[in-house]
């Protein structure tokens, strides 16, 4: 009952409200009008439809009261899109207001009109906008600059034909007001961003020497956001000589100490780029400036950006940061992700001169209640030991200090770290008995029923494997009963057979080592012999899942029976594991990140690919999700036709998988075609194991459906099969094309999955070079079929005008086009029809272009001699990336 009353009340009130407002809007009193307008806009914000009042509101525009005008403009802005016909009504008033004597109103009118973004309205905007760009008042000019950017977004044609872009370019050199300058720069950068190709954007906005000096002078006069805009523009400029670099630095260096983090980062980028371009100039102040952002005064997100930048700096130049290690000590209030990032930094800056102060700090974190942080801290101690040889002893001690019975998570992390340290420095810790004793002591417990020793069931496989490795290597007092407790436990899900293969391998080795030790001491018939026999027996008979375990067990058994063989294998001198590189990313990638300090790509750690011939449209490394790929159909099951003759191709240098994303495995390379006449496809890659321990093995590769229909023709064979940490291998996987594997929608992206142990499946992607996308052979088509395809419904057309740059005449252009070659050296354009237009001054060509495995792109090319342009029309079920690639190759050729 109550609800119905309320409902009635609200609808009643709404109707009367609109009615009342309309009455008020027609009032002559400004105060009444203003109140009514406020009510209208209030209802609008709540979501009520007030579009019915449009004409009444527009009438109010005649008022000369600024307040009323502003309210009307707010309203019109909101409803112009839904009421385009009525919006035209308002245009006259807009145009009139644009020549008002009050600069505020002039600016308001231009801003509102440009914000409406209806082409019909924008056409009326052209004359007032042109006037506003030359207005005497800088505020109006400033607003007009940004209005041009808005017009360009809605209608690039209008902005270009109206000459607005050129006017903006002229203002860069002519306008004396720094704020107008910074806004013109902002507008042009925004236009350049929207421009399709990089050449076009260069054409729109290019920073030359004279503009540079203007930008630098204006820098001091702008507010912080203006400074950010100007600094970003300055960053586009590459100084020609050392003197010029010095001039830039003089102006920009003071910005490094600004209170605004955006200014600091933009200035850091400029200084860094300038210093990188001319070796004579050093940039000593970038580091402290970015460091100063690592402070509790900044929002944590900004601190994160700063830490990521410092991370790249520290990787590139390990000598620069050790003195600043205190900046990376965690505050109590830091959010967890900052703490993790700071620990990463502590590992990077640790050096011989500061580890004594860093390690106690890390040990303090190991005592934190935050389990994840504590584990990271323990791991960090181990990593410092691996990187800094002088710190290794101290790290061992620190690791022993963190281990507690009550904190199994720490013991697990410490086990792995100690094992890595011992392998890194073989021989040095042969008697690290104290540490190992302690680790083993906290890893065992006494069974309450049987009184037997058993191991604490750690969850982490790596920790368990490390524990058994230590038992075998150091043979502490309890090693034998502990191993026996595992080996002789008969139940399926416990004991030896319940372990992961990696752990089983270590158990076998540990048992063999124990036996060897006893045998050396002359106790051939000791309990360790029984242990080894049991372990081998269960491994040979039970470990069906892992052939590796069975093979090792068989090998050990054979060697054991033989007599001395086991000793030769197990007690052999082993080389030290190489230190993992501190450099996680290739130097080139790091340098690129630093050249883009503060950008999203450098913070998240994406590699931005912009080769000269590909438009910037995607990131490498952001491959599709797991569902898209079918890795289970691995290369083991792929048919393996023997390739006729080994392929000799070298992998390209494209970065496919960063070490960060590959968890220590870095992959560069990509898809290639070998030299003519064979033209076989292959995936050539360089795999670098930066720190996958104990080594990556069991590689297999699979490709997702792609435009070229490529599938692996043979299994991936990595030499050597076990890729040790620090090693790299080049692998060439021959590929073949299969029609059923072709997917035209994929564009130039080739999604790749690589499986290996212990990393599992890694996904990444390659971008096929545009030259390889097009297929020259078998692209021909007869005229009738062409017409049928061309006119087929649903095949949307894409049109673009490309200006001529190199060619002078229609004939020249035509012969160049027909001379275009595809990746396989065959002709790219298969001309179906050709005719002359405009009395021979233009040529129209219809042609077919083969794309990928089986798709075709139908193109119409009109070469206009008078306008010196080439109009390209494209149809066909081909992805945009391929179309763009075609446009680029045509554009490059003309």
């Amino acid at each position: 009952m109550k609800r119905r009353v309320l409902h009635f009340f609200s609808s009643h009130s709404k109707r009367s409200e609109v009615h009342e407002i309309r009455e008020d809007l027609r009032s002559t009193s400004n105060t009444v009008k203003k109140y009514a307008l406020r009510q209208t806009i209030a209802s609008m914000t709540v979501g009520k439809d007030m579009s019915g009042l449009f004409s009444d509101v527009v009438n109010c525009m005649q008022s000369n009261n600024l307040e009323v005008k502003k309210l009307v403009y707010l309203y019109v802005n909101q409803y112009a899109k839904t009421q385009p016909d009525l919006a035209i009504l308002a245009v006259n008033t807009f145009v009139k207001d644009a020549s008002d004597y009050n600069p505020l109103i002039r600016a308001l009118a231009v801003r509102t009109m440009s914000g409406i973004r209806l082409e019909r309205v924008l056409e009326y905007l052209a004359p007032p906008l042109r006037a506003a760009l030359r207005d005497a008042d800088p505020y109006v000019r400033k607003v007009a600059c940004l209005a041009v950017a808005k017009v360009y977004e809605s209608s690039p044609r209008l902005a270009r034909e109206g000459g607005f872009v050129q006017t903006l370019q002229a203002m860069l050199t002519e306008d004396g007001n720094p704020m107008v300058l910074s806004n013109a720069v902002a507008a042009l950068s925004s236009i350049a961003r929207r421009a399709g190709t990089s050449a076009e954007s260069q054409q729109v906005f290019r920073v030359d020497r004279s503009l540079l000096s203007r930008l630098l002078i204006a820098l001091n006069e702008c507010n912080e956001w203006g400074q950010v805009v100007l600094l970003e523009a300055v960053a586009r400029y590459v100084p020609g000589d050392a003197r010029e670099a010095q001039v830039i630095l003089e102006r920009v260096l003071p910005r490094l100490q600004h209170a605004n983090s955006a200014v600091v980062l933009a200035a850091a980028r400029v200084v860094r780029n300038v210093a990188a371009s001319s070796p004579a100039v050093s940039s000593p102040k970038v580091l402290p400036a970015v460091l100063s952002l690592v402070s509790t005064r900044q929002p944590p997100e900004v601190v994160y950006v700063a830490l990521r930048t410092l991370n790249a700096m520290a990787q590139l130049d390990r000598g620069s940061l050790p003195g600043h290690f205190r900046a990376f000590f965690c505050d109590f209030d830091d959010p967890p992700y900052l703490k993790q990032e700071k620990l990463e930094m502590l590992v990077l800056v640790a050096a011989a001169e500061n580890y004594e102060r860093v390690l106690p700090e890390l040990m303090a974190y190991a005592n934190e209640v935050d389990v994840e942080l504590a584990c990271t801290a323990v791991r960090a101690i181990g990593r410092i030991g691996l990187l800094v040889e002088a710190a290794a002893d101290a790290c061992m001690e620190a690791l022993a200090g963190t281990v507690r019975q009550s904190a199994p998570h720490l013991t697990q992390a410490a086990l792995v770290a100690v094992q890595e340290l011992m392998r890194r420095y073989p021989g040095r810790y042969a008697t690290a008995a104290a540490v190992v004793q302690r680790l083993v002591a906290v890893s065992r417990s006494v069974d309450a029923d049987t009184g037997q020793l058993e191991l604490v069931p750690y969850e982490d496989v790596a920790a368990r494997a490390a524990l058994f490795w230590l038992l075998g290597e150091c043979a502490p007092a309890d090693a034998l009963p502990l191993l026996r407790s595992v080996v002789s436990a008969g139940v399926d899900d416990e004991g030896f057979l319940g372990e992961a293969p990696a752990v089983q391998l270590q158990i076998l080795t540990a048992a063999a080592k124990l036996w060897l030790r006893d045998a050396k001491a002359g106790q051939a018939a000791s309990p360790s012999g029984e242990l080894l026999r049991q372990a081998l027996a269960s491994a040979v008979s039970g470990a069906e899942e892992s052939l590796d375990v069975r093979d090792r067990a068989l090998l050990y058994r054979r060697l054991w029976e033989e007599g001395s063989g086991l000793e030769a294998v197990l007690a052999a001198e082993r080389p030290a594991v190489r230190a993992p590189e501190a450099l996680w990313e290739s130097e080139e990638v790091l340098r690129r990140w630093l050249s883009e300090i503060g950008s999203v790509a450098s913070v998240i750690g994406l590699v931005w690919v912009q080769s000269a011939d590909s438009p910037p449209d995607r990131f490498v490394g952001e491959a599709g999700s797991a569902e898209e790929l079918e890795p289970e159909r691995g290369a083991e099951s792929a048919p393996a036709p023997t390739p006729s003759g080994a392929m000799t191709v070298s992998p390209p240098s494209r970065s496919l998988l960063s070490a960060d994303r590959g968890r220590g495995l870095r992959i560069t390379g990509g898809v290639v075609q070998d030299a003519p006449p064979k033209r076989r496809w292959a995936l050539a890659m360089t795999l670098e194991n930066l720190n996958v321990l104990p080594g990556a093995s069991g590689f297999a590769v699979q490709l997702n459906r792609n435009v070229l229909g490529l599938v692996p023709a043979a299994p991936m064979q990595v030499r050597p099969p076990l890729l040790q940490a620090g090693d790299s291998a080049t692998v060439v996987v021959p590929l073949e094309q299969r029609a059923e594997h072709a997917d035209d929608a994929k564009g130039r992206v080739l999604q790749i999955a690589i499986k290996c142990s212990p990393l599992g499946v890694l996904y990444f992607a390659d971008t096929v070079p545009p030259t390889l996308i097009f297929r020259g052979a078998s692209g021909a088509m007869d005229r009738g079929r062409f017409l049928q395809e061309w006119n087929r419904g649903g095949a949307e057309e894409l049109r673009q005008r490309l200006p001529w740059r190199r060619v002078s005449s229609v004939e020249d252009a035509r012969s160049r086009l027909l001379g275009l070659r595809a990746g396989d050296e065959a002709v790219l354009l298969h001309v179906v029809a050709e005719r002359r237009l405009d009395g021979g001054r233009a040529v129209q060509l219809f042609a077919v272009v083969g794309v990928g495995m089986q798709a075709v792109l139908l193109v119409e090319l009109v070469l206009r001699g008078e306008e010196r342009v080439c109009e390209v029309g494209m149809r066909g079920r081909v992805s945009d990336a391929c179309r763009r690639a075609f446009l680029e190759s045509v554009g490059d050729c003309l």
Partner: protein
Amino acid sequence: MIQSLFVLNGNGEVLIERQCQPPAAGAIGSERTACRVYWEQVVAASPRGPGDGSSRGGGCGDLLWYGKAGSVGDQGVGAPARAVCYVWAQRLTFLADVDAAMSATSRSVMTPALVLDFLENTLVPLVRTYCGGQLTEDALRENFVVIYELLEEVLDNGFPSTTELSALLPLVPPSSATVLGRMMEAVTGACRDSSSSSVPGGAHRPSNGGVTGRPPHGPSAGTFASAAESLMAAWQGSTATRPHLPSSSSSIAADAVGAHTASPLQRRGSAGLPWRSPGTRHPHQEIFIDLVERIEAILSGGHGEVIRGTVHGTIECQTQLSGMPELVLRLRDTEQAVDDMAFHRCVRLDAVPDCDASTVTFVPPDGAFTLASYTRHNLWTPPVNASGTARPFPLRVTYRVSTATESPPAEPPSATTSNASAVPRRHAPPTRSLLLHITLHALVAGDQQVEDVIARLPFTTTNASSRASAPLECRVRASSGIAAWDPLARALRWSLPRLASHTSATLTATVSPAGSIDAAASVPTAPILQLSFRIPRLSVCGLGIERLQVLRATHPPYKGMRCVTHTANVEVRPAR
């Protein structure tokens, strides 16, 4: 690039919506998708909505978009990635939909993180100021027209534009209902609801080259702007949740006066100094210079050594001078005291060839501004690879923690004891408790003292286990000051109004689990000690003002100079 900006109330309803840019071709979702994404996140993470101060993660790039202010986004191959940046201000949410892919591809420095910085440190203070100092849903509804106009100026085409209050005031007059509006009305006679229909600024037509006679309200506008700045700074300070420099406001205040030559209503004189009008007149000539230093430090509780310590300092000026005076400020010990120094733009940098120079020449803006800011690292810690004694921290702190098994206490309650549990348990089993012992010792010169010392021990843990939320009881005894246990905040707070030079104060406390049966098993974790204090007349860096000369002064001004040291964030780790 900010694509759209919203202000939401505590129920996720849109109060203010501003679309700055049309969505890029192929963008995901509609115009309000960001709000939906955000609200789903809020509902999923905490049913209470914004304002409860809990932290939580976001979707895209879970590291960057995390915490009180975070972002969520959906990112796919080839599709433009979006980031939703939001900050909470009281019960309101300020939310910006950022085209992250755009800022990635264009290599713009305007990353989501910096958009957050903009929202938190620029936009929210401005909106608060225009709402009359309070950020509530009602205040926003009351002033929404002004807010819309404000957004139009602040955020043109998706990029921050005019953000200085002094430049905004003539463009967007505040509503007369607010304090700011009444001030503006009183000072300039111009406000939006003054019934005269004349358009502000309409009185003077812009002539060619902008040669106007006197600005319509030149000097008074300057005075007003500085008054408004201080008002804004006061609101800032009173509502700031995180201990931080008011430099967030000083990024506004620093360029406060007349940063925009282009403002049609505040056209400055032709002297070429955009920050000062030559027509400025004041009845009293005054200049005040404050050296304010803030300490960020981590101490170890054992002997009070400094693990990490940084000092951030600012030189704050407040000038009321007529004409165009030139000031020469000579600083003492700049080279030894300071690592790097940044100056306000009024400082003639050509006169300061290097940061090491200790003489600064400038023509000051009118009103309050930050002349310089500086940093000093490693003040109390010896540099790596160099032997040498470090300076002592002004307050020596020892903070020791031990666990003890004890029977219920038999000691008489003292005046400063406060029990969380009303009824002391007589025959309880022995409980394991935490013994805290804190000593503070002031190491300042004889004529100085440490003031407003507040030590806080929060017994909250990062992982929400059941143990962490079990009730605690606390017995505390302090040698001086007031110590109290706050059972709701689970924190111990000890405040001392002052600590004279070379005197000490101690506090002992016993914290044990209250009530429950299994109390014996669980002992709370030793908390961190958060310390704040103030030392007047001390510059910890050792910086000092040697001399201040005023050239071209109409009358000799009154000069006031002082320094003060605050804490920004000082924490002490317990020693066992």
